[in-house]
């Protein structure tokens, strides 16, 4: 396609290599002015890399970028910004201990004489923007004190403050409630109506159908074509994205719950800053059922999980797994048959510079099966790991003595799941177990959770992805401000209703 000024952005023949790895190969993108253009692809397909090139964070090895029909070389974010491109990253680029105003003006400060900050003027400009676009944002609040949805609006304001005409939104709906998603889509409509162009990166098909005009599909770094969204169905898009027909439904039989395995009563947990995050929470999980906790990030999920496994102190209340285990130690929780797939595998789950075999015995290294007395038996660890690798199809095979940092995200997650499941836990806590994984790996994780349930384990699934909670859980519990505000059997409740509860609006 020839460069044309009716397109806000055109990227032609973009190739990007990292060392020997080709992240993008000959990818094209043509975004019409005043439209919403979706970029669809699995995790790791190269969507974000393509946008980072447009935003100047990476340089393409081959290919040309046209803005409004004229070629541009974008060598840094500064060029992107001055050419009217703004980007909202999936992991927000906000300085947590700065205020909203400070974050918005960072790099483009409102100054008085001699580089001094004019906070009054800056605040006014931010307020003007807030009013113009109808956002609800407090310019003086610190980022660490505001909700995720609000943080996202701050990110959008950052771009608008710099006069962005084209906005790139990277996975913007990942952590929002259905109502917040509606609000975001409304904001996107308003922005397009006021003359802006929007590029949205996502792997969620529904949202593309609802919001986008056109959709470009990327698979493993290759261009799979651009489609008119109004002519496409969810199935078409999915097949194009993954390269085969995918079953979007999670297959499982009805649950046959047994005795109560986890019983949480009146739990109260404060965070490091002393703010109460879990406020008298009650929860029961029985053997042979999956209880899914639905809720927006920051409503006490992290504190709940941490208190169950004694990573944080429980201010009040009890956690019973056989006996009371609150305020003991993570080790004691493990000894009571609690296994956890943590939310952030790099932070909580793995010791990245260590070998795969060392990581697969993290909780069990002091058992007699891995060494006599004070010595550790690396041969036995190796054998055990080989068994896990085979059973869970961890790739590359034969990676026992490699550093785990070298494995792909999906395979790292498989190591954690293999390690936790092999201990045959009574209670398996899965916290954001599919974060950042591609479709194949997600299917694997879900199947494992269900097969563990069928074995008789109690499963506590905590996820910010509402779809995941709705698809996998037998019972759905909604958490809001540190309390369970509603409990539903699977299939008895719709997305909209759950969304209301997640936002604190459900019937009490």
């Amino acid at each position, binding site marked *: 396609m020839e460069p044309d000024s009716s397109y806000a952005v055109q990227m032609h023949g973009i190739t990007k290599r990292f060392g020997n790895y080709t992240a993008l190969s000959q990818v094209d993108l043509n975004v019409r002015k005043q439209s919403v253009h979706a970029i669809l692809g699995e995790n790791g397909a190269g969507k974000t890399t393509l946008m980072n090139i447009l935003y100047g964070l990476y340089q393409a090895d081959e290919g040309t970028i046209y803005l409004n029909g004229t070629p541009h070389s974008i060598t840094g974010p500064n060029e992107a910004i001055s050419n009217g491109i703004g980007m909202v990253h999936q992991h927000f680029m906000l300085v947590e201990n700065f205020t909203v105003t400070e974050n918005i003006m960072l790099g483009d400060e409102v100054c008085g004489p001699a580089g001094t900050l004019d906070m009054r003027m800056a605040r006014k400009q931010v307020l003007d923007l807030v009013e113009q676009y109808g956002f609800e944002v407090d310019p003086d609040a610190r980022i660490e004190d505001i909700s995720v949805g609000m943080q996202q609006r701050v990110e959008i304001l950052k771009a608008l403050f710099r006069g962005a005409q084209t906005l790139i939104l990277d996975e913007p709906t990942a952590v929002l409630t259905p109502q917040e998603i509606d609000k975001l889509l409304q904001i996107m409509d308003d922005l397009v109506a006021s003359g802006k162009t929007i590029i949205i990166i996502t792997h969620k098909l529904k949202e593309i159908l609802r919001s986008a005009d056109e959709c470009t599909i990327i698979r493993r770094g290759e261009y799979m074509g651009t489609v008119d969204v109004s002519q496409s169905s969810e199935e078409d898009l999915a097949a194009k994205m993954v390269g085969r027909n995918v079953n979007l439904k999670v297959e499982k039989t009805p649950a046959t719950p047994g005795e109560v395995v986890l019983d949480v009563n009146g739990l109260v947990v404060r965070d490091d800053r002393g703010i109460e995050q879990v406020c008298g929470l009650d929860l029961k999980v029985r053997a042979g059922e999956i209880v899914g906790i639905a809720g927006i990030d920051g409503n006490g999920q992290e504190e709940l999980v941490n208190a169950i*496994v004694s*990573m944080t102190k429980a201010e009040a209340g009890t956690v019973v797994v056989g006996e009371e285990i609150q305020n003991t*130690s*993570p*080790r004691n*929780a*493990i000894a009571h048959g609690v296994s*956890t797939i*943590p939310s952030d595998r790099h*932070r*909580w*789950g*793995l*010791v*990245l*510079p*260590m070998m795969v075999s*060392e990581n697969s015995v*993290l*909780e069990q*290294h*002091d058992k007699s099966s891995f*060494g006599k007395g*004070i*010595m*550790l038996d*690396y041969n036995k660890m190796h054998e055990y790991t080989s068994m896990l690798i085979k059973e869970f199809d961890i790739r590359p095979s034969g990676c026992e003595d490699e550093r785990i940092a070298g494995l792909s995200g999906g395979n790292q997650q498989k190591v954690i799941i293999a390690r936790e499941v092999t201990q045959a836990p009574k209670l398996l806590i899965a916290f954001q177990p599919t974060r950042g994984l591609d479709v194949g790996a997600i299917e694997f994780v879900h199947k494992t959770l269900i097969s563990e349930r069928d074995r008789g384990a109690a499963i506590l699934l905590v996820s910010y992805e509402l779809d995941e909670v709705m698809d996998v859980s037998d019972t759905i519990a909604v958490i809001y401000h540190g309390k369970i505000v509603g409990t539903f059997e699977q299939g008895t409740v719709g997305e909209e209703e759950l969304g209301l509860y997640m936002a604190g609006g459900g019937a009490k």
Partner: protein
Amino acid sequence: MSGLVKFLRRPIASTLVAVLVGLLIAILLVLVTGYDPLQTVATLVHGVFGSPKYITNVIIKATPILLTGVAVSFAFRTGLFNIGAEGQYILGTIVATIVGVSVNLPAVLQIPLVVLSGALGGALLGALIGFLKARLGIHEVITSIMTNWIMLYLCNFVVSSEAFHNPNSNTAYPINPSGYTMILPQWKVSDEGIEYLLQHPWLRDVLLKTDLNVGFLVAVFVAIVVGILLKRTKLGYQLRAVGLNKDAARFSGIAVERSVVLCMLISGGICGLAGALNITGINPHTLSTLVAQEGYGFNGLSVAFIAGCSTVGCIPSSLFFSALMYGGMTVQQVVGVPSEIINIMIGIIVFFTAIPSMAPWIADAIERRRSRENKNLAQETKGEEA
């Protein structure tokens, strides 16, 4: 050439490149300041290898810094920066002296008692630093720096105290000779020994002119044991996991606080051992008034970093360090080059070991250049063909 590239990608290459660069810059500095670099290097080599006595002294001086190096490496591998090695070393000397002066048992009991009590002193100080970090979250660097000074003044306090002050000197009383750890201390001054040594001038040089003691053997043993502890035991595995990712370690049931205290206890104990061995093994077998830090702890940092924090790597690294320091003194006496040239050189070496990406970076540069040359060559041949 491709052998060179392959070599540069191995971890040891970074250390060797660092040493090479340090050497080159030092030689350059010698040249610029108007001395003869060839003579300097020759004198340095002579000052290290010139006589059995020199070699022995290098080994003796390597002993404490090998131990402090092992202590720092061990702590670093488990995520702690033990800049307090100096203070723990001093406390080792203090406790060893007090015990060695106050108690007088047969050597078989006295030596272990003095040495172990010194090690215990260092261990307790280390554990205190670890406890303050684990329990109260006080940064180990602050407490370490503070305790370094407190120990220095504690040493001076003991030296000047009534119970231990050796009149008309700036030292304390020497420890009882039953605590000495020199090799064959009685035999080498007995008639029989002297007669034997007269016939073996090499051995005479080594035994009579130096304080050759068992310290270095102990230190090598400790380096190896600590290496095995880190690599092959459950405890070492736990400590490394805590050092590399304390959150994941805690999540998987490892007691992080205990591990921090334990790690500093061991690290401090090794430093205390270094101090005790210097008291039992080297004249004057006692404390002297300190005006400034002696540098055993800080030199331990250099030894550890040059060794890439491998405890066994500290053995060659401490010998290398000690050789440079000892030979540097000869250089100053003979050639007149200030011996600080050695400190500068070691500083440069440590500096470049901080950049492990250096050697691979050079390898990449060589490869890039070669592929460019190949391309040019290919184009030229193409041109000729056309």
